């Protein structure tokens, strides 16, 4: 591990860290190594069956009747005003069957504690029964204030990785893609430095569900695993 990654090293211990306890039961709480576990109108649980072959994973579900403020997330506060932030996690939403264009929920966000702005990743139906992952990034160069797009999320347990260069205004995302030189999407020319500043916290799990998502999937868990964050180097798998 190089020195530049040192501050974010705790995040490496995230869900992947539970692999070491394979012979024992999964921990009852995600904290530690996560900084905060404060679900609201939802649930988080560490359960057996890691997505990467390890012992445990995170199950995240919204509750029946939940509002758009529902949050079934764990929080990592180890970053400190990071000018560049790379993160990877695994996700499996196979239990969330037959999505539609209106079944939408966040699965990850990374934000500044000063401005509250950052990047939000969400899942939504593509209109043909499959899921996509959208990205919304605060961008002062865009008239809407955001740069946004999406990539397909195939069935099964998949790796999602992104690289947000806040200072440089660059963004790339890889979805089940282990080739650093060929991201699924790459975009420069963003003004992320002004609206974001730097990344201080990361949140993993379902959040901000649409009414349709709650009506269809309340109580059904999305699965997460293998969270890793770094400042500059590609993570891969």
């Amino acid at each position, binding site marked *: 591990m190089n020195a530049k990654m040192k501050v974010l090293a705790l995040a490496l211990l995230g869900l992947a860290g539970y692999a070491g306890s394979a012979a024992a039961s999964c921990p009852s709480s995600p904290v530690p190594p996560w900084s905060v576990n404060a679900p609201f109108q939802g649930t988080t649980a560490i359960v057996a069956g890691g997505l990467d072959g390890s012992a445990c994973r995170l199950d995240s579900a919204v509750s029946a009747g939940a*509002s*758009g*403020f529902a949050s079934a997330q764990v929080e990592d506060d180890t970053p400190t005003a990071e000018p560049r932030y790379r993160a990877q996690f695994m996700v499996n939403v196979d239990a969330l069957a037959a999505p539609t264009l209106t079944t939408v929920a966040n699965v990850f966000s990374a*934000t*500044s504690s000063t401005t*509250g*702005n950052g990047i939000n990743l969400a899942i939504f139906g593509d209109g043909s029964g499959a899921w996509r992952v959208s990205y919304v990034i605060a961008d002062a160069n865009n008239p809407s204030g955001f740069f*946004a797009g999406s990539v397909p999320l195939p069935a099964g347990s998949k790796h999602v990785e992104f690289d947000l260069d806040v200072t440089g205004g660059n963004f790339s995302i890889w979805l089940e893609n282990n080739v650093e030189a060929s991201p699924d999407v790459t975009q420069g020319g963003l003004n992320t430095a002004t609206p974001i500043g730097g990344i201080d916290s990361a949140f993993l799990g379902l959040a*901000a569900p649409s009414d349709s998502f709650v009506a269809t999937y309340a109580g059904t868990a999305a699965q997460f695993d293998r969270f890793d964050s770094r400042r500059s180097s590609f993570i891969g798998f």
Partner: protein
Amino acid sequence: MKKLLCALAVAAIAAPGLALADGGTSCATAQEIFSNQPYSGDTSTSTNFVGAFGGLPSPGPDLAFKFTAGAQTGGNVVVNITGGWNAGVVITGACGGNGGNPIQAATGTTTFNVPLTNGSFVAGNTYYLYVTGNPSDNSGPSGAFNFTNGTTPVTLKDFSID
């Protein structure tokens, strides 16, 4: 002197009820609210000065209110949305670029309640109530609203009778 104290105390209690304002367009101007009083505003007159509530996005403009929890809270903040825009009302323990994790919250396009469940709040602590867009709606919704606060008792500082 006792009469003066009494008059001051009554004035202090009555004055908030006379206010019918829009809420604050920044943390510094968050409007103090009191039990069982009506308030109204329009978030399109403000900016998106709160970027997130914990890990939740805040895609729309925000208006901020604040209250100090009493020994007991209860009832609901009853919210009415004008024009069917996709609104959210959230109560947190902080105000800033990130307003902190929700303590109570609800979303809707017509009428909805935000519970002031006793036990969710610590007596004496300041809480912030934001009217904003539904975090699940990236379009940044905004519009007019009114609400009636539930029971967030204010401590009576002084009172005496001849």
